[in-house]
């Protein structure tokens, strides 16, 4: 450590060695994920409190969500996590072709997730279920009717749904941007066996976003899966 390092490809001037630079990047990303845990944590707290306040409303609201689309998205994200892990693996092996292939695959899966999310959102907004004052117009008659006395509780569930999944989707969009950057860098041959921490660090971010969804899926989609409105 004490000796002065001669110039190494990819080593910033203020670091002494590649190991130090890599460690700093990894620790930095993990601490960033720590802040992300607390960021989403505030919403998980709100979820917990409102679910105990409005248990019925949450069953009802959750029932409005499309489990098939949500489930598909869960699988899409799981596969994308695998492809991301593979991309990291091949970046460490120095295999540029496979790295590029898996990065591209991950990007496609991420975009597929966002596409499905778009379909879900537009259906909800079309049904008058976006909980802003200007768009909130829940059906009180017909097949998907929400009884008037439950509408406020369903409103609470739906803003939690939109805020949590919306924030998650923003993270996905950022993730897609990161993947595009990585693909460009990989294409230019920036990554070698010795210098690949950007891929590894981005991988951590991608997996974190997957983990958030792992919790969102049962909390939002599956809570009311066994529930039949008017039944019991």
């Amino acid at each position, binding site marked *: 450590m004490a000796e002065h390092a001669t110039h190494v490809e990819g080593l910033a001037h203020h670091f002494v060695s590649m190991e130090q630079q890599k460690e700093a990047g*990894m620790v930095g990303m*993990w601490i960033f994920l720590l802040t992300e845990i607390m960021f989403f944590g505030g919403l998980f707290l709100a979820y*917990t409190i409102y679910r105990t306040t409005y248990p019925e409303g949450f069953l009802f609201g959750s029932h409005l969500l499309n489990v098939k689309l949500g489930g598909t998205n869960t699988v899409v994200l*799981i596969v994308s*996590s695998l492809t991301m892990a593979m991309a990291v693996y091949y970046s460490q092996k120095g295999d540029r072709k496979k790295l590029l292939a898996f990065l591209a695959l991950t990007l496609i899966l991420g975009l597929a997730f966002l596409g499905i999310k778009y379909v879900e959102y537009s259906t909800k907004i079309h049904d008058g279920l976006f909980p802003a004052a200007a768009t909130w117009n829940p059906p009180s008659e017909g097949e998907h009717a929400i009884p008037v006395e439950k509408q406020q509780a369903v409103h609470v569930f739906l803003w939690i749904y939109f805020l949590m999944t919306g924030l998650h989707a923003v993270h996905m969009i950022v993730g897609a941007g990161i993947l595009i950057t990585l693909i460009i860098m990989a294409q230019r041959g920036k990554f070698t066996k010795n210098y690949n921490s950007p891929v590894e660090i981005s991988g951590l971010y991608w997996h974190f976003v997957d983990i958030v969804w792992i919790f969102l899926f049962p909390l939002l989609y599956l809570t009311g899966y066994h529930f039949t409105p008017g039944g019991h």
Partner: protein
Amino acid sequence: MAEHSHAHPDNPLKYYIGVFTLLLVMTGLTVFVAKYDLEHIWPPLNIIVAMTIAVIKATAVVMIFMHVRWSSRLTQLIVVSGIFWLIIMLAFTVSDYYTRGGWPTTLGQ
């Protein structure tokens, strides 16, 4: 100065495939269980099952995909402290909501 990381396995691909399979199976399981109304047995049972499965899935991703199993002590400490602080926030706030209602009336007189 840095804690030496535990050695990465030579071929982590088998771990990756294993975790991937586990995630898919667990997703199927959680959807399957959610179809049944376990709340008749015990009100919070549905959510407990769902959250247990989610925690198992998240642990698998953190440990294998995110390499925490093979990472430095520092990384492991950061992960644990993140969960710890989240639990602090949830536990203290929830404890407020669950214990409201003031003193037993006999003490009030």
